[in-house]
């Protein structure tokens, strides 16, 4: 994990003081609503349906057990004992008071946490593969590059008032897109050239929201030394020419589309030519220093795989969980374990203060004191020895975080929706629950295999509905909640936007519609063919016919 220096810490403390003063001036009437709105948003504070929502930054999803304990304390003291893992790997509090936020930030700063740029029209949290650093398929650990970008983006004076929000993700896995770089404002793909040197394929202009589209390659191979100069060039073009008249046309994707990738590249290259080889050039020393923060933990050489094999044979429930919720690791004898926060009846991604404390203890005991948030609203213990897995599973089961549904139909991604969010057109949580209740036979859910269902309560697409194999979008029709279904979206091997199936449904119909879609799949699938492959083979028509016929 990145180790804060004195000056990193000082920056956070100065930020708390600055925000405290801004809050004081707002409460004293010295800042207008509109002025404070922009300032508080840059600090992740939204005013929501019932209360403010504070989004806490979790850079590339990585947390220490100490940070998780502090989160638990904050959640208990300032909220209602729950927080929410977001699809951008952040943590959200749903019930803080405006006047308490400076104190919350001070508490968070004591463990190197903050809410800097978690909202507003600025560069947001940098995200990556939740299995970064331990994923056997990655070509190198993307996290040092995320941290380098994070520092450049933090309080960047030129890019604090962009036309619209700006999201950057980094991926280092060839032939897959675990960080969804295809649907980010900028996607950075770590690649190696023939000489084995690190560089980046830089994408721009992807995004979900109202006008979903995948990004285009702007930089084919940006040598590592020039990463920040290249990003700065892309951002400067956007800051100058992005649409500022219409909020719905203000994302970089609209500009890239309007200019065309070729023109955008030309403008970027012109800016880049000026910055290249200048002071922004990254130094070997700096990259090595940051990489030095992400070294391997002290893995054991004496892991006893026999313990695991025996448990797998003897305990069917454990066996199922092992195959569903743990995954291969770079290091022999280790697995990455995903804690599913998707128990039926609970808001997807919600976690309580007590659970947080228990998770922190488990991280200390089994995974070198570190945790990750996933963009699918789960949490990960990334480095668990095979002979600890059974013991860990028993403890997770007792905590309600061993539901063996990772990547399956009931592992639903959903935004908080109309129950909490002021932007939402419709509720999303009850829709998720309805589906989870209908598909309550775990054997059947396993038989159906990998299936991503994503639910967003509005076009802003916080639930990433466009990239769900089945996407559900809440829409408002004359004051009534309706749901539009998309099929064929992907956020796995690649990022792809789903296709609309047809007219939308009332909330009571949604679960039946999902069941009909599943029935078509079961009827048409070839042996061992996942839902998405069947869909791509047979297309939309059979699903449409059965649902609307």
């Amino acid at each position, binding site marked *: 994990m990145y180790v804060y220096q004195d000056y990193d810490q000082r920056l956070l403390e100065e930020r708390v003081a600055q925000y405290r003063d801004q809050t004081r001036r707002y409460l004293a009437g010295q800042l207008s609503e509109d002025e404070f709105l922009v300032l508080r948003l840059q600090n992740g504070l939204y005013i929501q349906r019932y209360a403010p929502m504070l989004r806490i930054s979790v850079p590339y999803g990585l947390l220490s057990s100490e940070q998780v304990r502090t989160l638990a304390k904050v959640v208990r003291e300032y909220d209602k004992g729950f927080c929410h893992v977001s699809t951008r790997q952040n943590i959200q509090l749903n019930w803080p008071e405006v006047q308490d936020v400076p104190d919350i930030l001070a508490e968070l700063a004591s463990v190197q946490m903050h809410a800097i740029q978690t909202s507003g029209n600025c560069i947001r949290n940098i995200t990556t593969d939740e299995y970064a650093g331990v994923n056997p398929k990655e070509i190198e650990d993307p996290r040092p590059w995320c941290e380098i970008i994070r520092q450049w983006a933090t309080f960047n004076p030129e890019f604090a*008032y962009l036309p619209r929000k700006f999201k950057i993700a980094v991926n280092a896995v060839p032939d897959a897109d675990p960080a969804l770089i295809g649907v980010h404002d900028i996607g950075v793909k770590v690649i190696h050239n023939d000489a084995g040197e690190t560089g980046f394929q830089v994408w721009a202009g992807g995004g979900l929201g109202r006008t979903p589209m995948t990004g285009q390659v702007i930089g084919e191979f940006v040598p590592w030394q020039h990463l920040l100069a290249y990003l700065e060039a892309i951002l400067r073009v956007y800051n100058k020419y992005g649409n500022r008249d219409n909020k719905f046309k203000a994302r970089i994707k609209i500009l890239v589309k309007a200019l065309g990738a070729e023109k955008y590249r030309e403008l970027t290259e012109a800016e880049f030519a000026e910055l290249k080889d200048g002071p*922004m050039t990254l130094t070997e020393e700096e990259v090595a220093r940051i990489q030095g923060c992400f070294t391997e933990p002290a893995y054991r050489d004496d892991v006893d795989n026999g313990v695991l094999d025996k448990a797998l044979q003897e305990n069917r429930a454990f066996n199922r969980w092992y195959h569903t919720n743990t995954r291969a690791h770079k290091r022999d004898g280790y697995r990455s374990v995903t804690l599913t926060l998707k128990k039926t009846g609970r808001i997807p991604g919600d976690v309580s203060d007590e659970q947080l404390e228990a998770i922190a203890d488990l991280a200390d005991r089994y995974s070198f004191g570190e945790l990750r948030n996933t963009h699918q609203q789960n949490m990960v213990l990334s480095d668990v020895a095979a002979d600890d897995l059974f013991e860990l599973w028993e403890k997770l089961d007792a905590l309600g975080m061993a539901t063996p549904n990772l990547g399956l139909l009931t592992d639903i991604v959903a935004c908080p929706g109309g129950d909490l969010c002021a932007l939402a057109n419709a509720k999303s949580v009850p829709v998720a629950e309805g589906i989870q209740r209908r598909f309550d036979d775990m054997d059947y859910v396993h038989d159906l295999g990998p299936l991503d269902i994503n639910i967003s309560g509005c076009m802003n697409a916080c639930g990433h509905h466009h990239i769900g194999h089945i996407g559900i979008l809440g829409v408002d029709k004359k004051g009534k909640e309706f749901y539009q279904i998309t099929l064929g979206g992907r956020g796995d091997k690649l990022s792809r936007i789903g296709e609309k199936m047809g007219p939308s449904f009332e909330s009571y119909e949604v679960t039946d519609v999902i069941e009909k879609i599943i029935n078509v799949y079961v009827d048409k699938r070839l042996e061992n063919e996942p839902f998405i492959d069947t869909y791509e083979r047979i297309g939309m028509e059979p699903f449409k016919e059965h649902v609307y016929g």
Partner: protein
Amino acid sequence: MGKMILDGEIVDNGWQRFEPGELEEDGQSLPENQPVIVPLAYWQAHRDTLLEREAVGVCLEPGEEPADLAADLPHLPLVAIHFPAFKDGRGYSYARELRTRYRFTGEVRAVGDVLQDQLFYMHRVGFNAFEVRADRDIHEALENGLRPFSVTYQGDVHDPRPIYRRRQELEQA
């Protein structure tokens, strides 16, 4: 005469600024012996006469880039950048370009919706003069707005080195 911040101090604002269209509509002529800031279009239309005056600055609106003024910069003591709303951030890139691309050493002045909470960023990208909005406390803006942070990660127009090229200095601070 209003007050403004110039190079870290509160001073009288000796310049009179005209909004786009204002001079043309009123058909008025520029005041004699008075430093003036004129819109880009007016400058372009009356460049030769204006060059005879003692003190003329040009104000860029969002959408008007330093490139539109590049050839004239050596003749100008002042370029103003207008922020119709503080959240329109184009002016930050303009100021930076004035300083780093065109090496403009004259006054770069922020005008319009200029508020305490943006001064730090504005200063880092190259503004050295600020017409803080008249309804706000300019003393408080100067005191708390210009230096809320002692640490910066990026380089800026004052020191182009990012943190990884000046870490030793910071660690000793």
